[in-house]
């Protein structure tokens, strides 16, 4: 199994969630984060002149998924989170050692469900 961590725009969260749902991927965790990429932040206006915000608010999305569905998830996130402008975010993929469902204690490494159903 793999963990997909995607940093996306705040305003794209709903679109990404909907697109993933259509692919049958329901289970996910999000965190509100701040970060900086190539964009390097934005400038805002003050009373006089401007000030720079170099850490922008983003959403971090975490999904645990079977190896064979990774490409589909990545593709779905890329399509639904993309605006084409700087600051669209990044996707990171990690190997997962094990997944244990707290309610039942069962090990999910060999099942298909991942986060599904939580």
């Amino acid at each position: 199994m793999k963990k997909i961590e995607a940093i996306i725009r705040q305003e794209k969260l709903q679109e990404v969630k909907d697109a993933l749902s259509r692919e049958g991927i329901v289970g996910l965790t999000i965190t509100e984060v701040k970060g900086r990429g190539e964009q390097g932040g934005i400038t805002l206006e003050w009373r006089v002149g401007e000030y720079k915000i170099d850490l922008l608010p983003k959403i971090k999305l975490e999904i645990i998924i079977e190896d064979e569905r990774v490409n589909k998830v990545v593709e779905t996130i890329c399509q639904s989170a993309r605006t084409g402008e700087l600051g669209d975010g990044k996707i990171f993929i990690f190997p997962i050692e094990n997944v244990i469902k707290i309610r039942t204690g069962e090990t999910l490494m060999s099942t298909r469900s991942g986060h599904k159903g939580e």
Partner: protein
Amino acid sequence: MMINSGDTTWVLISSALVMLMTPALGLFYGGMVGKKNVLSTMMMSFVTLSLISLQWVIYGYSLCFGKDVYGIIGGLNFLGLNGVGQTPNPDYAPTIPHIAFMLFQMMFAVITPALITGCYVERVSFGGFLVFMLLWATFVYDPVCHWVWGVGGWLRKWGVLDFAGGVVVHISAGISALAASLVIGKRKGYGKTTYEPSNIPFTIIGAFLLWFGWFGFNGGSALVSGGLAASAFLTTNIAGCACGLMWMLLSWNYKRPSALGFATGCIVGLATITPASGYVGALSAIIIGIVSAFLGYYAIVLRMKTGIDDSLDVFACHGIGGILGVLATGIFANKAINPAGANGLLYGNLNQFLIQVYATVIVAIYAFVATFILTKLVDIVIGFRVSDKEEVVGLDISQHGETII
């Protein structure tokens, strides 16, 4: 002496309007500081209301409006409001209860020191701040108020025109803010860190509540309900509008018209028209408002270049605004608007302009020197600044044990 119920109503309502300005100032300032200092910044305004109201009743009013002592300070005859009753005091306002006049003036005494707090937010100890406020009200506000508005005060005898507090309120607070920020020094990381405003809507709500209160501030300074109050109300509104719009255009010309800039412009215009509000007409108010936007805007640009950390630009907004307003009074004052006033330079009276210049220079020097000494004194005796660690944590937690998150 007959109490006029219309005049009394207007002055009481005006007192309430001016009272509203102090918590409004808390919102205005609170929205511009960082998230970890919002509560402490608002607290500075709110607490000033309580502290100075008591100071005023116990001895402040007497020092300002008591029996004159050599033109310098009021005597102690009104100590504890002794002799300040429900009958009018003909020296100050012959148609309203003496208590109503005292109350109206109380709210001015409260908001003036509260204005200064914007210069040292985010880095001073709450204890140091309280002691400083009390000392400043006693040794700067009370004498200056007596000089300009107290019967027998030497600037009043000279004939200085200050309808609602350009000298007494804005110059004294604005110049003092400069002195205090020089003594207290920069915030840690000033010039390197970005200070993001925590909540611009707070600042906008604060600005418009200040504007609302300003109708009492200037309109109420007529001390009667009638034509002059209406005229002051009008010029107040017009100058606020003109300065706000001009400020917006200046920032738009630079890049974009920020809401924070517009709100600031409105406040600068209102501060600037204050001394002139009861002596000039609407067209003069427009000119005063527009000029004040240029001076205020570029005063902030200049202040930023000097590296002086007057955090919320009290000097640029109130000091420069107050100076311009007092001088503009000497230019645009018109006896046709207020027969009790005088004509200004524009109506052939150079003398009035010179009086306004002298009053500005003298009060500015006095406020600067006195505040410099008082700030140093507080710093040496009890410590005005918080420790570096407390500053990093933020004053909300380190001074009050509270947080907005």
